[in-house]
């Protein structure tokens, strides 16, 4: 009896990353062999109180066609029926969605692992308590600086002190808390300090990786993207801190950028779906393609659409164009139905 580890993080969704050894091990367990997705990334709403320069979703105002509470709960029922083990909820800012706790209670009530990704600014003591009751896999709080000045320069209208207080409140309430840090030219120099800050707050894990050239980040790419030299220092610090905090705090980093990821996904798509607030389902974050609509089709049908979509000439050709010209990543939110 063997157990084969896909020793790769899921932060950019399931299936192994571009690693030849793992590909060989997993030959025969491609994404289309899975009866349903292993993971759902669900952008619950579009509303957000911030205007982050690097927002993948270009979030801000809510849109009129977002899924209603009833539609959202019907989707949850389908997640349960298809035995999908893991869901991550984000937004927008998901805590601004009026039915977030109904959704979370349904998912957790059916013993599905659940992560919530938030800016932390709506987590007071009472909300931290409610989140604790859900026994979540984790709450991930975005913290893009070790100082208020840096964090708020990138996260417009952001409140660094509020996000830090949220982390502390979550930890006090024994919620598995993680911090996400996106490196940019503005904040990459604070990587060492923010990891130390994360540890001092007692969080479970620290997540980072190269900034994704999607959405608003793609539009602001020239002012945001760190240089190769900055990245080298950044990864050196990560390595040093990973060793320093081994056994005390998890430090995860995803080493690939979006283009590297797309090259791999073209060959080996992940067993996951990305659901956007209006119920449409994207093939993958960096591409504009929509492979289904939860308001019109079942999740099961959309999973079949997803498998076929990756083979379509339109998708393959456009993905190759994006790989050749990453500026096209700015189109990731100009949805195209396929």
């Amino acid at each position: 009896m063997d157990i084969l580890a896909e020793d790769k993080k899921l932060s950019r969704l399931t299936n192994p990353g571009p690693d030849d050894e793992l590909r060989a091990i997993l030959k025969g367990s491609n994404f289309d062999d899975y009866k349903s997705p292993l993971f759902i990334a669900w952008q619950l709403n579009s509303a957000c109180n911030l205007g982050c320069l690097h927002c993948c979703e270009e979030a801000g105002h809510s849109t009129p066609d977002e899924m209603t509470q009833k539609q959202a709960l019907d989707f949850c029922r389908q997640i349960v029926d298809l035995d999908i083990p893991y869901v991550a909820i984000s937004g927008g800012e998901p805590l601004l969605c009026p039915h977030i706790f109904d959704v979370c209670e349904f998912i957790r009530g059916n013993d599905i692992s659940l992560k919530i990704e938030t800016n932390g600014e709506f987590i007071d003591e009472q909300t931290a308590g409610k989140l604790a009751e859900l026994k979540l896999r984790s709450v991930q709080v975005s913290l893009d600086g070790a100082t208020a000045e840096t964090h708020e320069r990138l996260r417009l209208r952001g409140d660094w002190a509020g996000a830090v207080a949220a982390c502390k409140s979550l930890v006090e309430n024994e919620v598995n808390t993680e911090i996400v840090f996106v490196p940019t030219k503005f904040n990459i120099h604070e990587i060492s300090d923010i990891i130390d800050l994360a540890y001092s707050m007692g969080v479970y894990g620290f997540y980072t990786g190269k900034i994704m050239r999607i959405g608003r980040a793609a539009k602001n790419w020239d002012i945001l993207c760190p240089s190769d030299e900055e990245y080298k220092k950044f990864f050196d610090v990560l390595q040093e801190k990973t060793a320093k905090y081994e056994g005390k705090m998890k430090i995860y980093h995803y080493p690939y950028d979006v283009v590297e990821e797309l090259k791999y996904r073209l060959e080996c798509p992940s067993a996951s779906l990305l659901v956007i607030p209006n119920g449409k389902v994207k093939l993958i974050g960096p591409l504009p393609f929509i492979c289904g609509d939860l308001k019109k089709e079942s999740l099961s049908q959309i999973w079949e659409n997803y498998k076929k979509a990756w083979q379509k000439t339109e998708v393959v050709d456009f993905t190759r164009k994006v790989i050749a010209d990453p500026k096209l990543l700015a189109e990731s939110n100009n949805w195209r139905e396929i």
Partner: protein
Amino acid sequence: MNFIEHTKVRKEKFGTVVFDTLTEKIFITDQIGAEILQLIEQGKNLPQIINMLGDSYDGDKQIIKKDTLAFADELKSNNIIELQE
């Protein structure tokens, strides 16, 4: 012996997937591994599992025991299960 919280197990046609959603790692086992996982899910302890496999399969019981213990160690070292006995 039981699964660590947030570890999920799902049967697929190519084997059984063990998804440690906390570390976001995926493991895949063969059919006998899947049987052991199922017995763990049913709340069986290690000696019970070894006995049941010994009864189900032809072959040297000592080898079955050794392989089962090795598999359980692997599950434990990957933080998939915790051993209570």
